[in-house]
């Protein structure tokens, strides 16, 4: 059973990795520096999975082993109760919970063989394969303190600093953020052209005025777990109908707000689809 499961999971994860790589969705989860490794590992896993599955089938053909897997009666009863709780009454769940707590030798044996652990693995692989990959939302941003000022992004800063006196309209949000660690003076940026995209986000703790929101993105250094939100303040035009979490592209100029902090004075704002690579690397 364990060997069979292992082959299936290897194939599943291998397929998942290859699919993510081919559809350019890996950037939703990890930094580009891991792409090749991830792809290579997926290929290895896929090959290992196929070979070991083939071997498993071959071995079982020779031995003609009986399948030892059987579902315990108590487990079945619990499943029925859970389904009933959806259809008739929530109270059935309580009975199911009691059935789990009451000690029972045969039932405990089932758990010794770690059926649930195996189910969890299969469920995770299925979730990966079936659910459409999504980027992080502003909910996660609200869990993590947002940076309006500088953070060090070594690669970006150098190229951004070198080209500053030429046109700045091709600067991304990441370029602007890393520029500020090079020169934190807001006056330095005043009246520069801005054209950036990101998601709209309005944190509670900054006490922003009504027509001001943040345009934000996540900075990712390893994988989505370490994503840090960064953002710039922007003014929204009157009677603009945009919600938090909408992805937009903004054109405008830098100005200063009443706290003498940098703010983008919006001239044009368009709603866009979530880009294929939504994070800053």
């Amino acid at each position: 059973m364990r060997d069979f499961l292992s082959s299936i999971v290897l194939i599943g994860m291998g397929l998942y990795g290859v699919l993510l790589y081919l559809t350019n969705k890996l950037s939703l989860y990890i930094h580009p520096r891991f792409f090749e490794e991830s792809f290579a590992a997926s290929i290895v896993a896929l090959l290992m999975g196929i070979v070991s599955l083939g071997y498993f089938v071959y071995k079982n053909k020779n031995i003609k082993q009986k399948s030892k897997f059987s579902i315990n009666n108590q487990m079945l009863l619990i499943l029925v109760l859970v389904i009933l709780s959806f259809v008739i009454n929530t109270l059935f769940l309580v009975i199911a919970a009691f059935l789990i707590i009451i000690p029972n030798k045969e039932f405990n044996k089932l758990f010794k063989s770690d059926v649930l652990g195996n189910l969890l693995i299969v469920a995770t692989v299925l979730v990966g394969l079936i659910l459409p990959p999504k980027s992080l939302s502003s909910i996660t941003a609200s869990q993590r303190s947002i940076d309006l000022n500088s953070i060090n992004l070594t690669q970006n800063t150098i190229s951004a600093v070198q080209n500053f006196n030429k046109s700045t309209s091709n600067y991304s949000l990441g370029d602007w953020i890393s520029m500020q660690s090079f020169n934190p003076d807001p006056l330095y940026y005043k009246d520069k052209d801005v054209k950036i995209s990101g998601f709209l986000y309005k944190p509670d703790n900054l006490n922003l005025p009504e027509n001001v929101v943040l345009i934000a993105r996540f900075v990712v250094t390893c994988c989505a777990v370490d994503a840090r939100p960064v953002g710039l303040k922007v003014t929204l035009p009157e009677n603009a109908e945009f919600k938090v979490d909408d992805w937009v592209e903004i054109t405008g100029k830098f100005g200063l707000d009443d706290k003498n902090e940098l703010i983008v004075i919006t001239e044009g704002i368009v709603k866009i689809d979530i880009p294929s690579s939504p994070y800053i690397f």
Partner: protein
Amino acid sequence: MKKLFSTLNINKSILLILLAVIFLYQIKGGYDYFEFSEEGQIIALRLQDFITLVLSIIVEAFPFIILGVSLSTLIALNFFGWLKRKIYNHKKILFPLYFIYEISGRLDRKFKSNRVYSHVKVSLLGVFLPVCECGNIPVARRLLLGGFSVSQSITFLLAAPILNPITFLTTLEAFNYDKSVVVIRLLAGFIIANLIGIILSYKKPQNEFLNLDFYQEICDMNDHKHTKNRFVEAIGIFQREFIEIFKVLIFGALLAAASQTFIPRDIITTIGQNPLLSILAMLLLAFVISICSNVDAFFALSYANTFTIGSVLGFLIFGPMIDIKILTMMRTTYKTKLLAIVTLLVFLLSFLTALIVNFIK
């Protein structure tokens, strides 16, 4: 009552948690709640982010798990013994490798039962096995099966993620402006790992530290005879090791992602410049975030402006050694008691290092 608790194993509690989730879902009003009410939509988004986080940890760790399991399979098949024979047969062509083998062989004979030497040797293994922490666990398990003592395997697990070429290069790239960070990180990692290993080696017998399931595996291993076909044996080892590690990786990813989604991070990171509290905050962050040691320097760099340099170093030393993900994975092999001791020791020592750095700089 006591019997009730002793039969409540971990799988049963997961099942109960699952039931509780279903219960809450039904109490709240099912699908309509998540689709139409504002509060429900926020919970749905949070759940979606949670899934993204879990998958991102798994996708990120997957290549290293495959690499680690492959290495572990190679060790099990005595690949390195074969390599050694090849090198001795062709010592003129492969003289640098021959040189290394020869020196280590001589040192081995000279310091046969020296406690310090046996740990220092193991702590430098990471230089040749550039895998980060999740890939190291299968390797460490294999080394234990191959006759390493528990204290040596702990030294390997603690040292290898820091003392390896990839970590060295990325740290150097990230902290290019302050090279002392790199030096202190490597030195501290080396010293802490060896110190803890040497302390643990005084405990006899060592096998008391091992998880019962894994101890059983060692005993089985000694009776086990090699099957004739090396290839078939390799497939078997690869499969078993992979599924064992992958299972706990999922548990670790679930735990780490849950702590990320439900504990607001700004609680941790608003502390900033206080020389004492900033260290505590960064160590806590390292514990929660479970980031891969090969690239954590880039992450730490983004905090270098707002946090004290000592606390950033604390993050770089503590993070690779101990975090939620590694602890769940180490549980497959070691007893909880040992893990508690190691965690405490690593925490204290990296805290001390960070504090010293803060006062000197």
